[in-house]
């Protein structure tokens, strides 16, 4: 078992850059940030660093909020495109994303971990060399350019992909650890999972599926939900293993995709940001067709086309 991202290519880095900054552009487009200025002050409870750095002046001004939103949209698009402007724009855009996230989490005063991994990813990409220069279709590796100086994109791609992958994996793993040591077996046995599912399916959210409420009164369906919740917790706990083991990664990615889709339908809880990051960071389905085949040998011809974790020199 060696690190999956050891042979990451500039192409993979370009896909990650487009995904991360693209996600923030979509979030900025879909979030009416400027409406924070209209909301009563008692609804705003800053979190994290914003308890020390006041956001009041910004949150009270429609003009500044519009400016912030536009900065994330324009900066995010430019960063997703990459090129020379990336070096100049990535830092300010990551800063704008951080402030926008501060405003969003201040409304209601809760941090949602759906956006945390992609927030950290934006910062990791902003600080890593060669990210802007990476472009789609560039499959250069350090090995193929060994006689020359390897490009910064080729040298930096493995770290960028691996660090974002580690952040995503830890987000799942730490949560599962806390659930196991805090809730123990009881939450799977006493009907808690059924209560949680029904409540979330009926409560107002950005989607309005009511499928979760159908389990009420059915011992079979309540049992299935509890078992599914337990299996999900185990997969979440083992997330870091997906960075190393190719066969487990195939199973893990498949399960997590199904899990996240099922939480949308059953509980109106959408982790679309994580879904995108899982596909981009833990699979190579977005590589050009010809470049997936050699990596497939390690795992067989699975439908996800997940590449081998090997390829790097044994250290």
């Amino acid at each position: 078992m060696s690190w999956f991202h050891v042979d990451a290519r500039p192409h993979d880095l370009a896909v990650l850059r487009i995904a991360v900054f693209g996600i923030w552009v979509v979030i900025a487009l879909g979030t009416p940030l400027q409406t924070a200025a209209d909301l009563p002050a008692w609804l705003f409870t800053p979190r994290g660093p914003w308890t020390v750095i006041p956001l009041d002046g910004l949150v009270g001004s429609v003009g500044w909020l519009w400016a912030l939103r536009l900065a994330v949209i324009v900066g995010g698009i430019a960063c997703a495109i990459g090129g020379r402007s990336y070096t100049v724009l990535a830092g300010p855009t990551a800063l704008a994303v951080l402030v926008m996230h501060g405003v969003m989490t201040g409304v209601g005063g809760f941090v949602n971990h759906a956006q945390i991994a992609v927030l950290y990813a934006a910062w990791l990409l902003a600080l890593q060399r060669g990210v802007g220069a990476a472009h789609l279709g560039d499959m250069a590796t350090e090995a193929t350019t060994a006689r020359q100086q390897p490009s910064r994109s080729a040298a930096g791609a493995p770290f960028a992909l691996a660090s974002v992958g580690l952040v995503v994996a830890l987000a799942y793993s730490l949560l599962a650890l806390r659930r196991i040591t805090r809730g123990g077996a009881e939450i799977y046995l006493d009907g808690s999972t059924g209560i949680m599912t029904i409540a979330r399916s009926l409560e107002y959210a950005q989607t309005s599926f009511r499928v979760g409420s159908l389990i009420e009164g059915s011992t079979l369906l309540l049992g299935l939900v509890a078992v599914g919740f337990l299996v999900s917790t185990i997969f979440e706990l083992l997330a870091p293993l997906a960075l190393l083991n190719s066969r487990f990664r195939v199973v893990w990615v498949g399960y997590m995709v199904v899990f996240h889709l099922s939480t949308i339908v059953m509980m109106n809880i959408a982790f679309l940001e994580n879904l995108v990051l899982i596909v981009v960071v833990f699979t190579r389905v977005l590589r050009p067709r010809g470049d997936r085949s050699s990596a497939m040998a390690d795992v067989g011809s699975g439908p996800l086309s997940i590449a081998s974790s090997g390829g790097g020199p044994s250290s």
Partner: protein
Amino acid sequence: MQRLAAGLKAAGPHLRRRRVGWLWGGFCALLLVWWFLASSHGFLIEVGDAVIRPPRLAVEAAILIGALGFLIGRPGLPRIVAGADPRAFTLAVLLVVGTALTQFGLLGTQHYPLATWTMYTSPTAQITYTDLVMVRGDEELGQLPFARAVPTRSPRALLWPVTDVAEQAAQGDRSAEVRLEEWVAVVTAHPGVLPDDAAQRPDTLRIDRCAVRDPSQPGAVACSTLLEVPIPPPAPGAADPAAAADAGASEAGAR
């Protein structure tokens, strides 16, 4: 970074010793299973009146340290680190170490470092949630789609402070009632939250508290009305919804 990569390369074989890995992995698995069973009322491991179980800090620390050691020792990491920008590497280390330390800092709570939700980490006999129901006359028109008017990806979070204020208002706190009406005015004035057609427009917002209990029995969900708040009519002379929103906001005296 090259020097660090060389150090990792040298340390790798020591961290990859099979016997150490199996012993540590087995120890962690044992701790985890023990905790998993002992923390449940149904599976208490008791000696006399005492529940015997390892400290939670030891369980989480053993697993985290083991996992990080395992990841650091795997082949490929030196090459990955060699290509890292020192700034990005520092941030990555801060994130990983910071979240691990925060996990320990939150040990006595239901929380974990990357969210302020409780994340279904405790047995739950009942969940209570708030429903904002639009009403016209006696007719229910569905939940108030207030997410269109607030800059958050977690509209559920916004319901908590609203519920606090509604509960104070229901107990006769006049200032809480004013605050609640202020919020309703701002949100309902926002374009797209209420129907443009006056004939379809709700006149009241009903705030319900709903409790979900034993799901194995029918009727697990029971709701009761906490408060009813009048929805203000559209601002006079406001021909377009955007102007109505502006009028509603200034009327409410927000910020």
